[in-house]
């Protein structure tokens, strides 16, 4: 019932965390739910609050907030990309 969560770039620096494993908490059904749950941990985790230009990917594909989260998923949160 766990998922893997990755954080990148400025967001990883703000959170002080690059990667974690998490047992899916009750009531977390979507990417948006997960993001709200993580942001509620307090202190630096407020960097994940919606509206703060956080992007998400699920299983290595860009994902919208409404996308479901399933056990075994790899979810990533990061700032808007700036490559090229």
């Amino acid at each position, binding site marked *: 019932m766990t998922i893997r969560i*990755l954080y*990148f*770039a*400025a967001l990883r*620096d703000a959170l002080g965390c690059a990667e974690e494993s998490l047992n899916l908490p009750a009531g977390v059904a979507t990417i948006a739910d997960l993001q709200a749950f993580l942001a509620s941990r307090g202190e630096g985790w407020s960097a994940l609050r919606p509206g703060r*230009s956080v992007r998400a*990917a699920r299983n*290595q*594909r*860009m994902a919208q907030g409404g996308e479901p989260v399933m056990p075994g998923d790899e979810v*990533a949160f*990061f*700032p*808007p*990309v*700036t*490559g*090229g």
Partner: protein
Amino acid sequence: MSVSVREEDFDVGTETAALAADNPAVGAVASFVGYVRNANDGESIAAMTLEHYPGMTERSLQEIVDEAHRRWQLIAVRVVHRVGRLQPGDRIVFVGVAGAHRGEAFAACEFIMDYLKTRAPFWKREETPGGARWVDARETDDSAAARWDQDSAPG
């Protein structure tokens, strides 16, 4: 493989020639090379580090290339994106598109760059005299990518 993500530099002549090699139907190769500039937003840049999301990076670039093949009649596409620490004047990215005619080669090359800029998980961190800073995404990149949504007919 049409997509490569790596630390090593690329050779523009070799990459361009490979796109046309062994296929005498190629009449046009449009290509783009991005470089590290020595200044950005008014601050001088000593170096930059490109971070990426291994696995998703290659997948997202390949999806962009596949989408270009769906939208235009193309013969070959090549994308090379470097990661790690780079200095001003260093090459960052190569996008090359081979087709029979120039119209589709130009359009697909620009499309791939616009999508790469907004959909491929790379992040730049610049070293300036005032310290290191993450580069902010530019709104002009979003609007450059968005025009391909309306404009879905081959150009």
